């Protein structure tokens, strides 16, 4: 059984890395022929980096829009971020100091994450406009993440998992030396769902993760009069 999971995680990692890399290359290669930043926009590259930082870390545009969605999604994303950072300790040894320090916060973050996801789920059901635009995959994605968070919390509060064994398993995975996974229900559910998430990420709306960095309305400098912007295919039009 542990071998199956070892294989599953190797496959999931390959799919995630190659799938994402493929999309990132595709986005990077596709030209943006026109200057279309949503203005007022920064007039310098540094300004663009700041704008992107505010967008990625604080969800600036969403904050301007609707406070409920912002609260729920910020709780979820920041919770997830801290939880992921906390998980680093299962993969590296010795554990770096910052990772050791955030361990207690990771627990609260786990609750914040699940609560935020719950809020987003309820919003999807009860706001008629959001219900209208939701496909089955939109609900399933939230459920997947909720169950991942829930099974993770279960391991801390209900059925304690032998994390030392888990760490040995993943350590073994890196060195292909094998290792046994504890066969707890919560852990198996947690790991299965995480693998599923990793596999579907490059084929789903989770592409918003690389997408935001390539969004021309957010990543372009507002300087069209000062600097001529020309896509390769548009240049060909001039030569013909």
């Amino acid at each position, binding site marked *: 059984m542990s071998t199956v999971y070892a294989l599953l995680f190797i496959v999931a990692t390959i799919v995630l890395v190659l799938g994402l890399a493929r999309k990132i290359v595709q*986005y990077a290669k596709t030209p943006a022929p026109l200057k279309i930043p949503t203005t007022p926009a920064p*007039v310098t590259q540094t300004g663009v980096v700041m704008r992107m930082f505010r967008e990625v870390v604080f969800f600036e545009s969403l904050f301007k829009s609707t406070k409920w*969605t912002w609260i729920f999604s910020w709780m979820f994303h920041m919770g997830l971020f801290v939880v992921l950072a906390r998980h680093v300790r299962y993969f590296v040894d010795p554990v770096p100091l910052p990772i050791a320090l955030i361990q207690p916060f990771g627990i609260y973050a786990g609750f914040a994450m699940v609560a935020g996801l719950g809020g987003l789920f309820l919003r999807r059901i009860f706001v008629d*406009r959001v219900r*209208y*635009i939701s*496909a089955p*995959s939109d609900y399933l994605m939230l459920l997947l993440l909720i169950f991942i968070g829930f099974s993770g919390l279960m391991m801390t509060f209900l059925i304690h998992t032998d994390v030392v064994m888990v760490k040995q398993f993943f350590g073994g995975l890196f060195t292909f030396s094998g290792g046994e996974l504890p066969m707890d229900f919560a852990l198996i559910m947690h790991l299965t769902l995480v693998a599923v998430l990793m596999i579907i990420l490059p084929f789903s709306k989770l592409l918003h993760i690389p997408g935001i960095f390539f969004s021309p309305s957010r990543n372009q400098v507002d300087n069209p*009069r000062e600097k001529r912007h020309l896509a390769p295919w548009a240049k060909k*039009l001039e030569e013909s």
Partner: protein
Amino acid sequence: MAKAKFETPELSEFVDVPNIEEGAMAHTTCFVAKPEHQEPLGFPGEKVDDWHDRAIEKMGDLLSRYRSFRVYLDSCVKCGSCTDKCHYFLGTKDPKNMPVGRQDLLRKVYRRYFTFAGKYFPKLVGAADLTEEVLDDWYSYFHQCSQCRRCSVFCPYGIDTAEISMAAREIMAQVGVGQKYCNEIIAKVFKIGNNLGLPGPALADTLEGLEEDVYDEDEVAVKYPLDVKGADILLVTPSADFFAEPHVDGLIGYGKVFHEAGVSWTLSTTASEAANFGMFIGSYENMRRISLRVREAALELGVKRIVFGECGHAWRVAYSFLNTLAGPFDFLDPDYPVPQHICEFTWNEIQQGTLELDKSENDDKTLTFHDSCNVARATRMGDTPGGQFDIPRNVIKAVCNNFYDMEWDTIHERTFCCGGGGGLLTDDLMEIRVKGALPRMTALQNVMNEKGVTHMAAICAICKSQFTKVLPYYGMDMYQIVSVHQLVSDAIVLNRKTPPEEAPGYGEDDDD
């Protein structure tokens, strides 16, 4: 076609986010382009037999040429942030007028044909085949988007529905289902030089008439020159400025500002149109062809600077795209940005003190300012971000004593479109135009009630035409919409007097 009956929404103090009403605007559609409107633009005259395959092929082509299109189709997480931001949704309740609802009409086809999930699990991810019904939906709802970009302000990924609408219109035009209004106008630009099909001699007559009008009123010979070689400034302005009200009062104002600033300027017959409807239909090639007229006119007339008149989408193409489409402009005076907005020009002159302004001339009015969508969210004026909000207001405040802004969430980057932008300014779309104006009309009525505002100024030909038509539907007066340079025109004191021999009609017989 019988005039469609519809009810004008009632104005209240707030625009409530409505509950959705599916299919509320499904009946609204606009005239399809005929072969004579399609072919000059390089599109097939009629709907082609293999439209399905060609549409998918075109979508693939656009996906490879526009990063925005690809990233925006992939990135939407259906968070709902944009759902209550579109004026057309607020005015019609139709969920396909929610920005994401509109995008999804195309996204579901993209997913079906271009993504793994959509190919193998279409039901799960909401993917769908491109059918006759889907194409009809596209035609209907992608012509209910004014490409105003309000949704893109609030989207956490900056997804701009305008980009999707433009792509959809490009695909439709490529399979022979173009929009009559836009394509007919573009064909006119190619043939005659402007959107209204105003030929050179008619233009010369009109400008002469303006000179006489100004002379009759102020006894100063302000010139409105056409095709003057060697002039310093080429003014490119929307053709509506030549005769429509209140546009023409703005043009009179530009002339007076140039006169007082003591610069030489000219209009051009061949580039007698600032607007570029190539953007509305998403066609880079047509947009470029229209833009090149400006470059050619500038070269032919040997000007040093290019200034654009009051026009919203035109300013977007001018400010953001002109350098790309028709540049480089290294043959012009490098001391000035290319192009400049007339408001930038006037504000510079005001700051330098070259204009004498008598604000009291506008004391009969209390003003507010409508930020035109494309100026607000797709361009800039001056050197600092947000100049597109401040400079027109600075100009207004320099020529008027009474000015009040509308509510904060209806101005600046949050401004609402007038309801007629993006190729919708046609009578066959009157219902969506009236309903889409609801948020702006609400904000205007509030500032009228609370601050006693009497007039609303704008810097866009479409906004001016749209409000002239739509204000009466909401029980207001069509003359409440004014040009910013009309206010300048009224306040400016003409100090550069003309010798009598330069007066219009001097020495001619008085028998005409």
